[in-house]
């Protein structure tokens, strides 16, 4: 099995080849580049599954190989190292192998879905579309198995580029290029901090490796044990600072508060792109990075608490906004932000398994929901307003039942996948929260968000599929073919059963050993000791409490979150599962305007860019033109003016010259006389 690892580079290189082929020959190819994309991502998927098998079946159970040296040189590290190597390398451990499968699977299904969603609709620019998908898949896969922080940063940025290209796919409109720009700019603002973090970590520890003897995580742990100073801070504070800097990139890409504003706008891209990038993978990159370098964050209780708090807050904050959206994709956009908040919450309280579990489940059910909404958009002839839908249930049963499976998972209804992972996150947050008031607050926000999640999810389901058709299009929808149905069915099954991977509560109650994902991430089937759940768990500095016994705490937590989810769903049922639903917005009063305007988050960020930075830039430009360049032109004016005046002496009249000559001679004599002391 170990031999399979030698093929690991091909996982990312296949889609890269598809990118090149689509770009160079796309217009001449039968499906404009779709076929190479499907073949490449299919190949990546098979190889990723092989990696999963190789991790489980190998002796070492991981693969860590440097491919080539990008740049190397001498550099004094703060902890005393004197040289550094920046390399490209591959690290495949249980976490990376799992993520490779998720990414390549979703990418593969999105390619298949695109055959109908994009090709059949007579789009122009399809080679560009498939090239973008290929480049994206390449970047994301390379990011996932990057073995060091710098390489991760590089592909993280490339993922950002791809999102720019794909969100702006319909570049002839005004809104798509604007949304693309916003997505890149906002995430770049986060990446600015990330890059400082990379530079700081490299300059401190002389290495950027994630794993192994010479990893920065190990070096940081050693530095904290030594108790020395790093750049004038004590080691733990410095680890916190650098960890939070890297977190800037995470907050940008994973659309956490306050850098979440790009994601809803990013729905300007094709729905397939939304499914691939803004639900299942690119946004996942941020959270995945936290999981990838979890050993580093585990060293800093402050950083963890901040991750948890930001996550909990974002989960609630975004969920409330999802409640009032009319556009089906907008609802999903806000739910994405909210769900990544849960993952951050889980990781922040040390629930490494729970966070990764939800990452996986969410990838499946959110890709499903986005693709399902894509199917709805096809059915509705490109109508996205849910108020113009209704009654699609009977006309498109495959779409409806798969969408419903995704919705149940999203809302966290037992036994669908989302329930298990969300419950585990909330449980982990609760037991830590019982000892830490700040985490308790984060938990509480996450818990309240469950109600809103149940509500907006089922409001969406009821408005779209139930009731009477509200427009002629909804009466007589377009049909969808196998290329749309097949991916929906695959994801529908996964969204339903993926929870089986880690039935932690059942395991605790019955004692059955069925927490497979936990064993997987704990290195029981293979992996690196330093990157296992138990080694993280030992490092995480939080105390854990319980209400009564562990079992009562668990049951209480699960009951609470399930109850709230059902309450949300039933509220939606009562309000919207009627033949002709109405908006009910007046009941929200003033809150409606605030929610509708997304808490004015866009307003202040646009103001920062256009109301503050731009005028400052213009003022700087005026200053530059008048003062600095004015000084330069002034110097030249003075010399021109001086020359102009002096040249008047050149009158051409000989007597004038004679007079000047004599005057000059006399002046010279007087000067010499003074200096020579003649007049004394």
């Amino acid at each position, binding site marked *: 099995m170990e031999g399979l690892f030698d093929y690991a580079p091909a996982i990312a290189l296949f889609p890269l080849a598809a990118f090149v082929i689509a770009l160079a020959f796309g217009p001449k190819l039968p499906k404009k580049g779709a076929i190479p994309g499907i073949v490449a991502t299919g190949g990546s998927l098979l190889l990723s599954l092989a990696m999963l098998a190789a991790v489980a079946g190998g002796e070492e159970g991981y693969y860590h190989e440097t491919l080539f040296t990008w740049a190397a*040189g*001498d550099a004094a590290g703060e902890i005393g190292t004197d040289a550094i190597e920046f390399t490209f390398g591959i690290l495949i451990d249980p976490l990376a192998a799992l993520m490779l499968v998720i990414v390549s699977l979703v990418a593969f299904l999105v390619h298949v879905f695109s055959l109908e969603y994009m090709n059949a609709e007579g789009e122009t620019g399809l080679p560009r579309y498939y090239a973008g998908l290929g480049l994206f898949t390449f970047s994301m896969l390379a990011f996932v198995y990057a073995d060091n922080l710098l390489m991760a940063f590089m592909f993280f940025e490339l993922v950002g580029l791809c999102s720019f290209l794909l969100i702006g796919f319909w570049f*002839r409109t005004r809104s798509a290029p604007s949304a693309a*720009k916003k997505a890149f*700019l906002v995430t770049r603002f986060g990446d600015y901090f990330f*890059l*400082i973090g990379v530079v700081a970590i490299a*300059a401190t520890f002389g290495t950027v490796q994630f794993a192994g003897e010479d990893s920065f995580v190990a070096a940081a742990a050693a530095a904290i044990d030594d108790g020395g100073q790093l750049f004038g801070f004590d080691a733990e504070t410095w680890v916190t600072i650098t960890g939070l800097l890297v977190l800037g990139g995470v907050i940008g890409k994973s659309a956490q508060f306050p850098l979440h504003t790009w994601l809803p706008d990013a729905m300007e891209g094709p729905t397939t792109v939304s499914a691939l990038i803004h639900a299942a993978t690119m946004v996942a990159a941020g959270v995945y990075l936290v999981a990838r370098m979890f050993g580093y964050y585990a060293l800093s209780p402050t950083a963890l608490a901040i991750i948890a708090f930001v996550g909990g807050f974002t989960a609630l904050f975004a969920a409330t906004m999802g409640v009032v959206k009319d556009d089906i994709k907008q609802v999903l956009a806000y739910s994405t932000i909210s769900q990544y908040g849960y993952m951050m919450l889980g990781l922040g309280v040390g629930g490494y398994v729970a966070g990764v579990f939800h990452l996986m489940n969410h990838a499946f059910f959110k890709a499903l929901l986005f693709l399902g909404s894509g199917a709805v958009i096809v059915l509705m002839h490109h109508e996205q307003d849910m108020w113009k839908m209704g009654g699609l249930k009977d006309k498109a049963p495959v779409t409806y039942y798969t969408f419903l499976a995704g919705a149940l998972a999203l809302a966290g209804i037992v036994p669908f996948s989302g329930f298990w992972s969300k419950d585990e996150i909330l449980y982990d947050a609760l037991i830590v929260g019982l000892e830490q008031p700040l985490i308790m607050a984060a938990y509480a926000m996450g818990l309240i968000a469950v109600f809103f999640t149940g509500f907006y999810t089922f409001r969406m389901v009821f408005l779209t599929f139930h009731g009477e058709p509200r427009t002629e299009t909804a009466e007589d929808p377009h049909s969808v073919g196998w290329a749309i149905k097949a991916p929906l069915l695959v994801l529908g099954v996964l969204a339903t059963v993926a929870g089986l991977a880690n039935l932690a509560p059942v395991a605790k109650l019955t004692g059955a050993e069925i927490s497979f994902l936990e064993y997987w991430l704990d290195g029981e089937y293979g992996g690196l000791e330093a990157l296992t759940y138990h080694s993280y768990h030992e490092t995480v500095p939080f105390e854990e409490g319980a209400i009564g016994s562990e079992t009562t705490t668990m049951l209480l937590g699960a009951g609470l979150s399930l109850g709230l989810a059902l309450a949300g769903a039933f509220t939606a049922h009562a309000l919207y599962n009627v033949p002709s639903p109405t908006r009910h917005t007046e009941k929200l009063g003033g809150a409606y305007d605030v929610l509708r305007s997304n808490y004015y988050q866009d307003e202040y960020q646009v103001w920062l860019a256009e109301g503050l*930075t731009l005028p400052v830039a213009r003022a700087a430009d005026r200053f530059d033109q008048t003062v600095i360049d004015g000084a330069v032109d002034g110097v030249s004016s003075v010399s021109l003016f001086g020359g102009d005046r002096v040249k008047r002496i050149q009158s051409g009249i000989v007597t004038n010259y004679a007079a000047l000559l004599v005057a000059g001679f006399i002046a010279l004599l007087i000067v010499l006389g003074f200096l020579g002391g003649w007049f004394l």
Partner: protein
Amino acid sequence: MMIEALLAVTLVGALVTFVAPNRIAGKLAFAISLLPAGLGLWLFSAFDGSGNALLEGELAFESRVEWIQIGEYTVSWFVGLDGISLPLVVLTTILCTLAIVSSWTPIDDRESQFYGLVLFIEANLIGVFAALDFFVWFIFWEAVLIPMYLLIGIWGGPRRKYAAIKFFVYTNVASLLMFGAFIVLVFSLGDAVTSFALPEIATAMLEGGPEAFMGVAGSTIAAAVFVAMFVGFAVKVPVVPFHTWLPDAHVEAPTPASVLLAGVLLKMGTYALLRFNFTMFPEQAEAFAVPIAAIAVISVIYGAMLALAQTDLKRIVAYSSVSSMGYVILGLIAYTQFGVGGATFQMVSHGLISGLMFMAVGVIYNATHTRMVTDMSGMADRMPVAVGILVAGAFGYMGLPLMSGFFGEYAIFFGSFGSGRLPYSQVFTPLAMFGIVIVAGYLLFALQRTVFGPYHLETDYDVGRAPLHDVAPMFVLLAIIIALGVAPELIFEMITDAVDPILENGGEL
């Protein structure tokens, strides 16, 4: 003799082009320029030097002939290459060839003179990077100005006379300052030097430094010379506040002149700073580290803010050069292998990327006859390939990983963050790094308004796909940019080899 051959081929080629008929001058100049470009690549492959040219390194392609005796001082024809100058020579030869091809469309008047001047400027630029005797170096250094003055003044835009004179006078006055300072330095070194050979002067500076001269203490002279030379070179770079000639020159210059101006001429300034100020005056550089780093940061941020306020595509790219050159200064003052090496790498990288950007803007201008952001939108609809390359170049400018700009900037940031020589380097570095956010802001704004959105053009021209010879040079540049971004060691290894001896004099190694 290879450098002489390189210079001779280029100069003779320039003369031949001057007398050739206008009709064939463009193609002829391209054919001729392939010779130096090929020779440059051969030099690159046959390079066997090591160490720093000024600090007793093994020179490649060295040649030294005594030339003139001025009093006690010997002037020699002394040329040779090390790991710092070679990449810049190769950059020059490649960029000149591509600039010539990119002139075929826009230049339709007095072609033989135009292409002759381009080849003439190429020869002088090679001379600047290869010369190791101050006298020879200074001749090339000054001789670069004349053809550039003419290129702007004859083939430029409406305000070409103002821009050309401003460019010439400003940089010439700066040269005078630098020249005077250098002569003072040579005299104050006394008997320690008997020639104008730069290695000898560098050795004398590092081993003894200036003696008291005309009643002024040696250390004061050294400091004054350092400052005067810094200012002299800073105009060329240019750093804030000596930058205002640059946007005017760029806006008025024809596209190929802009390509050379941003691509190579600006690097003369940073190259000279590295060779003179930072190699010969390590102590003074350390003493002035904080103000220089402040100037670097101000250039980065202020230059980027100015770019943000522009609506002329060429002005945007011009101001962004000020910003990018600020990174170079930061890398140099850091005095670490990654800092100085990254700065040198960034000189090459920025030459390629800014050249690409000016070409792309030029291609759009050829078709639309306007460069104003407000005059056009949706150009991607009509010229997809050219716009695709423009977008790629813009992301290169933003420092997208796997393109050369990222490595240059990353190396500089990494090198300066950990620098022990630069006080407050952990403050300066993040401040300068904010440039990567602003650059994304102004380039994406410009792209959004010009190449995306519904097609619209204020001027009355029919826009179609750009011809192959407009696009091909940009492809070549893009390929090099990506190659250097994926494998920066291609040149970084030789650069660090030449940088190390500089750092031994008080830097960090």
